[in-house]
């Protein structure tokens, strides 16, 4: 009974990890760089939503406005931080994302941090269903539903829309896609406009449970990278599977072996995956014609 409860809780936690992992892989596939700041983008946007909420008092309106603003915020970050001199190389862009991660944390401390952590209003119903002694929180169930819906939307986008096809083309062969007329820069901007609301959604799911503060995403960022590796860094849906693996295993380790080993277990899974199955559970090997 305890193990089942822990596994269910781990799945819910793992899907939130998977969502952040999804953002990392989505940006990696569409822009060529996994953005280390993805979590802190969500944290910063959640602070903005909180400010809006304090100003006008309705958490749902604040979240709606926040989602709209996060589209602009994503585009702004791309245009200001990543677009200039984007030909400087992957290492250069990667370092920019690390700097952005630190800058957003520092800015959150400066603008919002004096009274943190904040109690964030819950957007999802409280309470839950009790099935045979196992409590399943409504918020967890709805979170799972949201994440599944997002996954389905993206699958549909990649399979049935021109935009999705262009994303896939850039992900697989950016130079050839460019030669075929795909505007890679424009696509990258769109990718960030999509990533902005996704990152905010993670913040909105986490903040009511964990309180809102500038380091709120740090604990799950490492888990998200581990999930991306386990799922395969090229597989979007693999990130959710990776997230579930990491969420369930770390929860079981916390329960039966002690919380201090939870992060270590996630990192161990990541290392073992890289050593035994470098492309993860769902990733595909890169094939090059010689």
């Amino acid at each position, binding site marked *: 009974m305890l193990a089942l409860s*822990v596994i269910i809780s781990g799945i819910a*936690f793992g899907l939130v990890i998977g969502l952040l992992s999804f953002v990392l892989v989505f940006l990696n596939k569409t822009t060529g760089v996994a953005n280390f700041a993805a979590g802190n983008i969500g944290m910063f946007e959640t602070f903005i939503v909180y400010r809006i909420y304090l100003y006008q008092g309705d958490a749902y309106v604040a979240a709606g406005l926040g989602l709209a603003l996060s589209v602009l915020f994503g585009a702004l970050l791309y245009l*200001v931080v990543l677009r200039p001199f984007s030909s400087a190389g992957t290492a250069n862009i990667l370092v920019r994302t690390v700097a952005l991660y630190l800058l957003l944390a*520092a800015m959150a401390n400066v603008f919002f941090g004096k*009274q943190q952590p904040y109690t964030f209003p819950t957007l999802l119903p409280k309470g839950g269903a009790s099935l045979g002694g196992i409590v399943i929180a409504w918020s967890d169930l709805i979170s799972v539903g949201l994440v599944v819906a997002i996954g389905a939307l993206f699958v549909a986008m990649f399979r049935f829309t021109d935009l999705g096809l262009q994303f896939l083309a850039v992900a697989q062969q950016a130079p050839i896609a460019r030669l075929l007329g795909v505007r890679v820069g424009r696509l990258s901007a769109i990718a960030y406009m999509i990533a902005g609301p996704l990152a905010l959604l993670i913040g909105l799911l986490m903040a009511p449970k*964990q*309180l809102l503060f500038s380091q709120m995403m740090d604990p799950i960022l490492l888990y998200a990278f581990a999930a991306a590796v386990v799922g395969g860094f090229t597989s979007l849906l693999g990130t959710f599977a990776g997230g579930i693996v990491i*969420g369930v295993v770390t929860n079981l380790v916390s*329960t039966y072996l002690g919380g201090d080993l939870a992060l270590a277990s996630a990192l161990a899974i990541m290392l073992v995956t890289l050593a035994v199955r470098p492309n993860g559970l769902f990733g595909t090997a890169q094939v090059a014609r010689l």
Partner: protein
Amino acid sequence: MSYEPRARTIRRRPGGRPRSRALLGAGAVGATLALLVSACGSGTGDSASAGSDDPIELGISVPLSGAVGSSCTPMNKAMLAWFKHVNDSGGVNGRQIKIDNRDDGYDAARAVTNTKAFIAKKVVAVTGQCGSLQPPAQVPLLGAAKIPFLFVFGASTKLLDPLNPMYFNLMPTYGDQLVAAVPWIFQHHGTGSVAIMSTTTPDSEHTASSVSEAVKKAGGTVAGTFTAPPGTADFSPYVLKMKGLHPDYIVLNQIPQDAARFTKAMTAQKLAPTKKLLGSSAVSQATFLSTVDPAVMPKLVVTSDTLAPSAAENTECTKVVKAAGLEVEGVTLRGCGTAQVVTEVLKRVGDKVTGPAIVSELESWKNVKASEIYPELTFSKTNHVGVSSLYILGVKDGEFEQIGQLGE
């Protein structure tokens, strides 16, 4: 932030507005550097002087940002408010108190940087620290420089054993507080099984062990002990495991933010102790209470080395804290009360305020009422923890209220 009693110079950086988007990057870099510089501290000023008319200079390194910034900032503001009140009333023995107030972000490395600056400035004492993480890094430096380190809000056994002659504290360690509270709570609510939830700290194992012994000694049983790293993202596994144990009491030996997340996970999983949820002064503050589900509040009992706000209504501290625009609650009263104790020491030392003189004065105290907020204080050469009695607080109408006292 720096509060200084005399006029200070504000330096303004001349400069214009960037004219083109190309300069945005440079602007961002500049802003980043400015942030880093401001984060490293803003204290300025001359070295402390031994002259009797010169200000008495104190150093404060405190988390105004970071994981415990929300708990420590109001405490710091209340301290500064009391020192300002003292200065406005003529100072201590005719001398103004000058504070070099620096943010350490709950980061030991930044606290060390701040401490080295205090030593270079030859402050007479360092006070106002908040948190258990940074003091172990500061104590050796201040001990070697013979600068008293007064009254950290945070309590670690590592700082008391071995005892550094320069280190003084007001509150007993969180472990000692919980150990003292266990017999009281059993006496008032009956014995029972106890689950202990700790944040991993240098003290956590020792504290859990001490509390377990106290539980057994008082006739209870230990249902289980749990330890989670600071900043744990998901407390569900701990809650689920604890739920299967059906504890009568849950003891919170956690940092406030983790305790808040843990109680939220308790609420989500419908876990509540049959009898009480017991915490130390680490969680006897409004910021923690505001995160606790109203259904759990009636079960919450905490220890405190300071008066509950409702019991401190007519104190000078309450007036000063209110006048400063701060909320009268546990941490602000603690900040004000700590500043009162510091002021009392300086007053009793007299004209020649030096580190050794402060140490000598404190070690002579026996049942001294140095603050309205703290109980009587006693120190000696071998005992540098001043408070020997604790208040027990419960929650009524969403606020802490005093329901008992230990060691009266």
